[in-house]
């Protein structure tokens, strides 16, 4: 909200005309961003998500949306309910893992993503279970900022593309939608990025045994998502089987994200992932 309002001072035209990349032409009033949840990473990115007049969520990306200054004070997150800590923390995890496994991953984004994954995996459960735990909330807040830096440098992938589709259709909180789709999409992608998922397994401190590192990491993330109370099925949000083809078509419209996915995803693949959540 604030990032877009700040550039609205010096740019004409309706906000919807800015949807996409590089459609804001003048810098705005400098911003100081102080997040009070740890997840969107918005304070670290040149991105803003808005819903248009038809209700569809879309991204606006411009260097003029970058904050001048960021203040990360964990005291401000202490009043956030555990449910919000869970969904926003999983959103940050998705930013980091998608940036690390996406096609645009690079040495710079890898550093940010690895730091973010470490911070989130070591502290998210603590932040969720102990609301007054300043240390764990600070670790997740800083990790969320790092994940935002990672996605600025490398972008997100199909997890976010599919999450926007169900988020818009059923008003599912963004972090919850990402949590529901993170493991299903990574499972689909795993043969295209097995070495990277294996590296994340090593970073998470999980030893792969009979299973591969990629599979062990996915099991670990699945358990984490469940442990912090993220739902795992769509019908509780009102989804029906007859909605799937429209949802899949909507997800595929997010070409900026789908093109960055490590494995090409067609309509049948996306439909299959949604169907498995029914």
């Amino acid at each position, binding site marked *: *909200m*604030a*990032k*877009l*309002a*700040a550039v*609205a*001072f010096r740019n004409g035209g*309706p*906000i*919807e005309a800015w949807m996409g990349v590089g459609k804001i032409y003048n810098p*705005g*009033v*400098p*911003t*100081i*961003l*102080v*997040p*009070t*949840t740890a997840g*969107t990473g*918005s*304070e*670290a990115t*040149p991105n803003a*998500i*808005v*819903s*248009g*007049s038809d209700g569809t*969520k879309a991204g606006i990306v411009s*260097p003029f949306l*970058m*904050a*001048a*200054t*960021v*203040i*990360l*004070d*964990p*005291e*401000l997150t202490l*009043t956030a309910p555990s449910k919000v800590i869970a969904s926003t923390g999983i959103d940050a995890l998705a930013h980091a893992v998608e940036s690390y496994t996406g096609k645009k991953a*690079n*040495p*710079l*984004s890898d550093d940010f993503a690895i730091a973010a994954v470490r911070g989130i995996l070591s502290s998210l459960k603590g932040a969720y279970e102990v609301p007054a735990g*300043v240390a764990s909330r*600070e670790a997740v*807040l*800083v990790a969320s*900022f790092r994940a935002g*830096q990672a996605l*600025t*440098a490398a972008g997100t992938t199909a997890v976010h593309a599919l999450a926007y589709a169900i988020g818009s259709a059923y008003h599912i909180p*963004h972090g919850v939608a990402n949590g529901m789709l993170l493991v299903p999409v990574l499972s689909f992608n795993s043969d295209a990025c097995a070495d990277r998922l294996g590296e994340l397994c090593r970073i998470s401190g999980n030893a792969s045994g009979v299973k591969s590192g990629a599979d062990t990491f996915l099991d670990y993330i699945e358990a984490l998502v469940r442990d912090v109370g993220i739902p795992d099925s769509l019908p509780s949000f009102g989804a029906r089987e007859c909605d799937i083809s429209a949802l899949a078509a909507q997800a595929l419209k997010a070409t900026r994200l789908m093109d960055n996915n490590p494995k090409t995803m067609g309509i049948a693949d996306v439909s299959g992932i949604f169907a498995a959540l029914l």
Partner: protein
Amino acid sequence: MYGYDAPRKVIAGCGSLGGLPAFLIQSGAKRITLIIDPVLLETAPIRELLPSLKESFWLDVQTGIVSEPSAEAVELMAERIKKGAGTPEPDVIAAIGG
């Protein structure tokens, strides 16, 4: 080729929000618009912050931080900020929330 952009300054740590007035003075800002999530107004860090901001700056407070807002809501907020700040425009927009 890798592209990357970043905030110019990051201040982190428990209680770091309390340093905002001093930071703003140092930056030379005089007119501040603060956008804040209304549920935060009664929290201890904000109750401590607002008087010192009011004391040192021209301050306009707008409530209504929303994550992933509608385009219409953003346009309305921009109008409210313009009306609240008048002329000249604010030197900085600080946003707490989201």
